[in-house]
């Protein structure tokens, strides 16, 4: 099963590589990993998407807890949550494809943020599934390059992950 683990960690050198190291050393999967400082600059928040059986996910959360830099963590997939990912994608846009690209961007509620005679650069935000669907839809036009941020997420409701 896919799990989204949110981690608050000390904003210190080495913290990220400790997490990455843990995953490679123990053979756990990482689908994506994003990290940036929070409103409290001493803390970073990491969102890590991983897959595994319940036993493995339990081990992953326990091992993450053990890292001295980790302040708190939660498995967002255990409760209601919101998940978003952002993608920048550059596609070929000449002739009929230009119109088609524009139409697809509208349907997916994306934005064209850079235009040349032959290309569009598109920004699209949503769940990973939505981004996947957009890629499939626009693939035929010719993708020049794309960059995805990886998922970021928070739980719904009053509670929050705080130190």
């Amino acid at each position, binding site marked *: 099963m896919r799990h989204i683990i949110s981690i608050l*960690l*000390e904003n210190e*050198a*080495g913290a990220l*590589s*400790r997490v990455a*190291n843990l995953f490679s*050393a123990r053979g756990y999967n990482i689908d994506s990993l994003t990290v940036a400082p929070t409103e409290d600059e001493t803390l970073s928040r990491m969102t890590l998407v991983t897959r595994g059986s319940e*036993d493995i996910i*339990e*081990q992953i959360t*326990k*091992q993450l*807890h*053990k890292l*001295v*830099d*980790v*302040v708190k963590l939660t498995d967002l997939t255990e409760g209601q949550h919101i998940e978003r990912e952002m993608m920048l994608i550059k596609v070929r846009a000449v002739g009929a494809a230009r119109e088609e690209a524009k139409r697809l961007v509208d349907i997916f509620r994306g934005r064209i943020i850079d235009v040349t005679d032959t290309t569009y650069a598109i920004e699209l935000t949503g769940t990973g599934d939505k981004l996947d669907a957009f890629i499939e839809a626009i693939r035929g036009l010719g993708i020049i390059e794309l960059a995805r941020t990886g998922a970021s997420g928070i739980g719904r409701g009053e509670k929050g992950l705080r*130190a």
Partner: protein
Amino acid sequence: MELSQVNVELTGADLFVRCLQDEGVEYVFGYPGGAALHIYDAVFKQDKVKHILVRHEQGAAHAADGYARATGRPGVVLVTSGPGITNTITGIATAYMDSIPLVVFSGQVPTHLIGDDAFQEVDAVGLTRPCVKHNFLVRDVKDLALTIKKAFYIATTGRPGPVHVDIPKDVTAQKTRYYYPESVNMRSYNPVIKGHPGQIKKAVELILSAKRPMIYTGGGVVLGEAAEALTELVRLLGYPCTNTLMGLGAFPGTDPLFVGMLGMHGTYEANMAMHECDVLVAIGARFDDRITGDLNKFCPYARIIHVDIDPASISKNVPVDVPIVGNAANVMKDMIAAIRASGRKPDQEALKAWWKQLQAWRAVDCLNYDRKSELIKPQFVIEKLYEVTGGDAFVTSDVGQHQMWAAQFYKFNKPRRWINSGGLGTMGFGMPAAMGVQFAYPDATVTCVTGEASILMCIQELSTCKQYDLPIKIINLNNRYMGMVRQWQEFFYDRRYSHSYMDALPDFKKMAESYGHVGMFIDKPGDVEGALKEALKMKDRLVFMDFITDQKENVYPMIAAGSGHHEMHLSPSTGEAPAKRELA
């Protein structure tokens, strides 16, 4: 030099030494080099913290580790950058695998050169990260004291382990005011200490309902200073107790309730009891693969209680029924109190039947060996060592057959007496570890049981032993083979002894003498006891005893890979195994 005024500005190097003094550090095991020279200069200017010069940085880490294992206090290491820290890695990983508190300091190139491939630069924190509990690179002298405090705090609390602090040379030259905090509080690090009362209640309920109970304990009981509580708990219940290789001495080895070590080379009775028990109480043990054998065949009838300070150890390899996170001593004291308060007793009838079964397994006499041999049997040497030292020596070991024989035949009645690399299995550990033990207890009998292959891996430390007059007694079980490797090749590779033969060995007696020690050569069974007695009489000399042992002796019992606890290979000298009993 009076440094106690808070207002005095100190260099990073002086501050470093002052921190160690205030931390109460007795010994630092180390080796100098360019990036650490400011620190070494500061070490020179004082004599409160004693620096022990080893001959190879691996020796420093193992010596500090031996000191820590014997005392429970953190071992401290100081090395230079580059090759200094890379040489230390094996020792750090050894300590990490056995949860030993070490604080390792390394010099680093100056901060402005970091990343430039400077002379003797290596990404030290990157190298140690996978084998330390935590590490730090100190970039500002103002952070140095607090970092040192944190390092000791992290190394010694919760599940202990090595912590590495990398200190660039310029940081040791910069000045700042000295202030060493009494304690630290880290929001991201809060080890659990007390067990959950609800879980303890459940565990006690299960323990008292057992018909075929088994208590299985590991290194956590030793590290957690819980041997007394364990002894009380086991005796209160009258249940059989087994220890892992790391846990020996936590329960008295001569107590009739002790059924010996378990696992790959555990006793027949311990392993059979594991297989057939209906309630297993695991305390401070981590279900290592050398303990469990094939997981599919592990404890098929048991409900399992697991007490451990590290939540990540629980249900890692084996799913458990009652997990309890907490310090082993606290949890066992709570259990004892709960059992007493309940006024209940274990099922005496069931327990009687269970002990009858255990005695039948014991009668197999699985550790028996050929006592009439013309050759020196390695087991015999350990038996004699046990007798001659009255069972009260510190015994360190290296890795191989000799390690298993020492574990099987020396009966440890106290914790922290048996000192070996169980997790990483590091050849070369034994002698430097013995140095650390001897520094901690100058008057104690410290012995090192080793093999001719292992001892050569840190042989240079004989020179350190000479410099500091360490009267260690080295028992070299010399079978002219990497015995444990040879045994596997005999059993599993059709006797193709690929590179397990130790050709061109030195004359160990002469070698010891050339380092300034006493050497002995013993090749007759009749001389074993006399040699040991003579060596032990030399209270102020290191004695290297080279015992020429039976080349082909094997360690029994043995559980081969993929087998369960009930599927042991037994020695030809062992009695008939009893017929499999009917389970109730």
